[in-house]
């Protein structure tokens, strides 16, 4: 048997990359910031809202930039919708902190600065993880959460097509 004893390990031929592709903005740009917590209302009817600002170049999102205000229960709503309708494993939200809502605490409870910061960070992680998931990006509830002024809880659940 006379055959080559050294294998040919040269690279396969490939198309040269277009320079606009190489140096242009990547097509996967998606950034969501959760910040500027504001506590609204007085006494026992207080609640905290957060600004959810999104910047993206993904074609599936109608708006390339959006800015909405959301509260914790809105995030919970989104999580429930996705758990019901989509096939993804939804990441966890930061805790509900029921203990903090009990009376006779020494501190501000759920309006304590350090707690709000912890929650803000957890919500930011949560929304970035979901919004980047190819299967979650098809869900109407996600688009409404990120880009509509307010959430219509009576909406018709469904998929978004590009």
């Amino acid at each position, binding site marked *: 048997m006379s055959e080559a004893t050294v*294998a040919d390990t040269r*690279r*396969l031929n490939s198309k040269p*990359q*277009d320079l606009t*592709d*190489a140096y242009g903005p990547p*097509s*996967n740009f998606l950034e969501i910031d959760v910040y500027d917590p504001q506590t609204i209302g007085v006494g026992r009817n207080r609640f905290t809202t957060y600004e959810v600002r999104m910047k993206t170049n993904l074609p599936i999102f109608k708006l390339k930039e959006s800015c909405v205000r959301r509260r914790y229960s809105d995030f919970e709503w989104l999580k429930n919708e996705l758990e019901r309708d989509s096939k993804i494993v939804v990441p966890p939200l930061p805790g509900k902190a029921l203990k903090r809502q009990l009376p006779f605490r020494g501190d501000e409870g759920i309006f304590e600065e350090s707690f709000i910061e912890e929650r803000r960070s957890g919500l930011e992680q949560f929304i970035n*993880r979901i919004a980047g998931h190819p299967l979650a990006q098809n869900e109407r509830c996600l688009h409404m959460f990120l880009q509509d002024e307010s959430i219509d809880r009576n909406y018709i659940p469904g998929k978004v097509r590009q």
Partner: protein
Amino acid sequence: MSFFSFGQTAEIDIVLNDAETRKKVEHKTEDGKKDKYFLFYDGETVSGKVNVTLKNPGKRLEHQGIKIEFIGQIELYFDRGNHHEFVSLVKDLARPGEMAQSQTFDFEFTHVEKPYESYTGQNVKLRYFLRATISRRLNDVCKELDIVVHTLSTYPELNSSIKMEVGIEDCLHIEFEYNKSKYHLKDVIVGKIYFLLVRIKIKHMEIDIIKRETTGTGPNVYHENDTIAKYEIMDGAPVRGESIPIRLFLAGYEMTPTMRDINKKFSVRYYLNLVLIDEEERRYFKQQEITLWRKGDIVRKSMSHQAAIASQRFEGSLRAPKIDSKHDI
């Protein structure tokens, strides 16, 4: 073991005639250890001597016959009692009678068929061995000598590359290419991944080699997957138009040739698994089967005459691992 201290016991020893010159190879045992065994190929003659040594000098050994067998068998671990013998040869060495002193018997199994490669797996074992037996009324005296058989192939005539475009609609499109569909065990996988659309945030990409051992038939089929290798080929985020090269040397990994439906009892198949991982640890993968085959070593002067005959025999042999044409793409 004899319970009667006044009886005669014997020890058996099997020695091959070409023990000095025949090559030995390492082979895994069932408990994971590696041992060395004599290497044989299909068609080679197995010959040697059986030494029967009497332990108590002066006493005679009564027996019902002495024989030697050459056996090739498949053992499924979930069905230990049943050994499926696909090769079974026997030579009688002595008729029933008495042995007055230690003796040596010659044996030869000429041009033995060894259609399959020796394999020790997770749920199945295929082995070849010589077994010498002294039959006695109460208990036989037995000795086994395992050998290892390798099946060799030559370069396949048809060996097309594997090239495919896969992806997730509107999110990720790639074209992957591997230079061949059939690789020998010391070959190199040369390929590339070309990115057509990247709308997810990829962190890195790796290629895994997965071995799948399938045992059982019909509703009792059981697949055992084992990741033999994980090899990172890209670290960082690619963009459209980028080509990532693949060069994976197979000689560093412990693999066997692809075995398809051996004696209708088991299969061992290999897959390349291309895995992309994004920043949230989500995994996107594409699995593709490859055929592995064993190339014969270059014929050296010291190679035994018999092995040279055997290697000429199998070049046209129908029993070389079947390179199934329907797996060409």
